[in-house]
Structure formats: structure tokens, C-alpha cells
């Protein structure tokens, strides 16, 4: 059976050209970039080349890019780095209720260390109101962190508006752009962000590598202490093959992004329309238009997400859900609950995230199979008769 992968927001396969670009850096160009000899300097050159590519993609300067082990580290670095470096200025942080766990859990950690965190609500589409950000600012606020687009239901936040507010108030502004970079244009100056997190494996790069953009002049403490790597902000011998892979992925994304976003938006809307038409009592989660080109998230009433996922998997279709049953926390998605969904609706959510190897055929197959699965599960649902 041909499998259909529709979980590109969880991770993407590494592009064959990216793998090809990485390979020499395992064997031939294996030097330590801190070494003076030619092996070391060749490796160093490769890192700096990748750094410029990443910087160019987001309108930054090379020196403002720090390579990390991924998006989670970039988020941790941004939040802890700014918080601990600016404690003398204040202890207040503003964030949103639908952030990725890498931000939420870091904020909780900081709260335990004496910081105050304001967690802003979102509207039914998952949008933060920039007015709320403005109102939440106090003379103790040192950092605002709002994700550029949500990983579960794809809503794109008004980052530029929040950026303007942060800039006017002289407060550092971080955005988790892990789901955005390489998929739609991102410019750190247009957005007026001071820190931006990204991850390679969400844009056809390898796992285990990402980057944090840090605007020149931003005060933050190093993430790791040790050697002089990454301008002394992140010690540790660099992950050369990974960094080269990120560079190549970014280069490819830059070439393909425009057309690919358009193609995926069309497929996304086909899938959304088809699902809502063919399955009654189904609703779209997230904003219909201010939405990542590849994200489809629906709640199907009266059925639970994991049981839909398992049935889809039996048919070769790989997707994801915000149901508690698929997580270790046994709590439904905090994102979907924040939109005002009932726990049942959050449990009945499905996310299909499209990518480079998704075509009309795959969309059609989901539209053919899912209604049958839902009918089967609804026939055994105790929730149905009460409606």
C-alpha cells in the first residue's frame, strides 16, 4: 500500500539535495572549525556560508544568526537568555496561550525563578489582539514572545503589529517562527522582531539543527558556556553537516517558496472544503485565511481523534490529532481549548499538514476514506444519540 504522509508540520523528510550537500561534511570536510589548519578552516567556511544563507532568507545579517540544536533550543535560548540578562530592568514577560510547549514550559520555569508571566488569550480563530499586548505592558516588562504561526491549527498572528508595539515600548520581542520560515516570506525588519526561532527539519532540512536570530544589540546571556563558538553565545563544537543542511534547505526554500505556497494553499482549501462538505458536524479550527498554506485542522463531532488516526493509518494515511489520547499528558490540546472548543471537540480534532510531496491524488484519497471512518466510529459513539 502506498503511504500518504500528511504530517509535514511534525517533521519533513530531508530533501535529497540537502542530504547530498551534507554528505561531504561527515567524511571529507570533517575538521573542527576552531582549528587553524585547512581542515578546520574549510569547515568554518561552510558554516559561515550557511549563516549568510539563513540571514538572507529573513532579512538579517550573518552575525545575527546563532545556530542551535533546533527550534526548542532556540526558544529556550531566547526566553531564558533575555530574562536572565535583563533581570535588573524588570521581571515581566508577556506571551500567548497557544504557544508551543517549548515557550510555555520555559515560561513556567521562569515563573518558578521569580519572573511574572502574562499569558494572553486568543479569539475563536486563535488570533492575539495586539491591543491586549499593549494593555499588558508594565514598567517591568522585559520580553514579549508570540509565535508567528501556530503549529496545530495554522493561524498566522499579527506579528508586525505586535512588533511595532514592542519597539515603541522598548521591549524585546521574540517570535517562534518554526512553522513559517521557508514556507512564507519572513523579514525580521518588517516584523520588528528582536529574536526569531527556526528549525531545519520543518523545511526539508535535517533534524537536530536550527537557528536563533538575535538582533544586534540585544542583551542576553549565553545558552551554553564553554568554548568561543557562535560569538561565545553558544559553546560546543558546531554541527557542521547539520548547519550545511540547514543552509541548503534555506537556499532551496528561497527558490521554491512562492510557487509552493500557492500550490499548497490551493490543495489546503480543496481539502478543507471537501471535508466540511462530505462530513456533517465538522468544523474548521483556526483562521480560514490568515493561515499557513499547508495546515488543515478540523474537529469532527462525536468521535475521538486517536481512533480516527489509527483507522487512517490502517489505510496508509499519516496525520495527527490534538486529542489527549495521543499524548502522554492525557489532556486535550491547550491550543484548541484556548479557541473555546469543548473538550470533546478538541479530542475529535485532526490535523493534516501538507508538503512538497502532496498532490491532488493524496487529497482525494483522504476525502474518500475519512467519511467512511467517521461513519464507522460514529456508529459506536455514545455521544451521538444525545444530539
Amino acid at each position: 500500500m502506498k503511504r500518504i504522509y500528511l504530517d509535514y508540520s511534525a517533521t519533513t523528510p530531508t530533501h535529497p539535495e540537502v542530504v547530498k550537500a551534507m554528505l561531504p561534511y561527515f567524511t571529507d570536510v570533517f575538521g573542527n572549525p576552531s582549528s587553524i589548519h585547512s581542515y578546520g578552516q574549510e569547515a568554518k567556511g561552510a558554516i559561515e556560508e550557511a549563516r549568510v544563507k539563513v540571514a538572507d532568507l529573513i532579512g538579517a545579517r550573518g552575525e545575527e544568526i546563532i545556530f542551535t540544536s533546533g527550534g526548542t533550543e532556540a526558544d529556550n535560548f531566547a526566553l531564558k537568555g533575555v530574562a536572565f540578562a535583563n533581570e535588573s530592568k524588570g521581571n515581566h514577560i508577556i506571551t500567548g496561550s497557544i504557544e508551543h510547549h517549548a515557550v510555555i514550559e520555559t515560561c513556567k520555569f521562569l515563573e518558578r525563578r521569580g519572573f511574572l508571566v502574562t499569558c494572553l488569550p486568543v479569539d475563536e480563530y486563535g488570533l492575539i489582539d495586539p491591543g491586549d499586548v499593549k494593555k499588558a505592558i508594565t514598567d517591568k516588562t522585559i520580553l514579549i514572545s508570540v509565535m508567528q504561526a501556530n503549529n496545530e491549527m495554522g493561524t498566522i498572528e499579527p506579528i508586525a503589529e505586535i512588533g511595532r508595539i514592542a519597539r515603541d515600548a522598548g521591549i524585546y520581542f521574540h517570535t517562534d517562527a518554526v512553522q513559517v520560515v521557508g514556507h512564507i516570506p519572513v523579514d525580521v525588519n518588517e516584523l520588528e522582531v528582536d529574536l526569531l526561532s527556526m528549525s531545519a527539519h520543518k523545511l526539508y532540512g535535517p533534524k537536530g539543527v536550527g537557528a536563533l536570530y538575535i538582533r544586534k544589540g540585544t542583551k542576553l546571556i549565553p545558552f551554553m558556556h564553554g568554548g568561543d563558538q557562535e560569538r561565545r553565545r553558544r559553546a560546543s563544537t558546531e554541527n557542521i553537516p547539520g548547519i550545511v543542511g540547514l543552509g541548503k534547505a534555506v537556499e532551496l526554500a528561497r527558490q521554491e517558496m512562492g510557487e509552493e505556497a500557492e500550490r499548497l494553499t490551493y490543495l489546503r482549501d480543496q481539502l478543507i472544503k471537501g471535508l466540511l462538505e462530505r462530513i456533517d458536524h465538522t468544523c474548521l479550527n483556526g483562521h480560514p485565511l490568515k493561515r499557513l498554506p499547508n495546515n488543515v485542522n478540523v474537529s469532527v463531532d462525536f468521535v475521538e481523534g486517536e481512533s480516527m488516526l489509527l483507522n487512517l493509518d490502517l489505510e496508509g494515511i499519516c496525520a495527527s490529532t490534538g486529542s489527549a489520547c495521543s499524548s502522554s499528558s492525557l489532556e486535550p490540546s491547550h491550543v484548541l481549548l484556548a479557541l473555546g472548543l469543548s473538550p470533546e471537540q478538541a479530542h475529535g480534532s485532526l490535523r493534516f499538514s501538507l508538503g512538497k510531496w502532496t498532490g491532488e491524488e493524496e487529497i482525494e484519497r483522504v476525502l474518500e476514506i475519512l467519511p467512511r471512518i467517521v461513519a464507522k466510529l460514529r456508529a459506536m459513539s455514545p455521544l451521538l444519540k444525545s444530539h
Partner: protein
Amino acid sequence: MRDVWSLYSEKVMEHFKNPRNVGEIENPDGIGHVGNPVCGDIMELYIKVNDSTIVDAKFKTFGCGAAIATSSMVTEMVKGKSIDEALEISNRAVAEALDGLPPIKMHCSVLAEEALKSAIEDYLAKSK
């Protein structure tokens, strides 16, 4: 044997794919209703009792693969058993009959046991 590369045992998947005893019993002698929407599992279990023996059992479940499989299994296990025997069925026994459940899913077997007990209690209360 559990395949370490898959979440569930073959037995769980088999009951998930082809659940036994799905549906409701008309005029049941006992109904058990357990679970809540917050945790994402709701089970309804119906029993038909004749001479203190459970002659039929059916279920309706909203929940994950393990919730559906444990519902299916517990209804299979209980058929033909006396009320006293049925009360002896533990969640562990249901899980074992399915060749085990992942630790995080053991609560589904607890729910199956509770659904059965609740249906029996309902029967006992009605027959008083």
C-alpha cells in the same frame, strides 16, 4: 508478542478493527455509563441478565483505540458469566486478554472494568 515498533498489540488492533458487540441492547437489564469528555473516553455498557447470568452485553464508546478494544474485550469476557463471576473481572484481566496495553493506556482497561461494574450495579439496583 507486542511489536515494539507499534503502539498496540496485534490483539488490540484486531479488536479495534473489528470490535465485537457494538451497539445498544433494547430494554437492557443494566446500563453502565462511565468516563468524561475531558479525559476523552466515554463508555456505555449494556447487559442482559437471565437467571443471574449475563446472556448478552453490548457497548458504545467514544475514545481511543485502547478504549474501543477494551470495551470490545470486556463485553466478550462477560457473556455467559454469572453476576458474581463478572464482578471478579479486573482491569488487569481485560488488559491481559488483549496481550497488554501501553502503560499510558492502562486507564482504558480501568474504564472497561468500571463500565461493567456500573452496569451490574444498575442491574442489582433495578432487581431489588
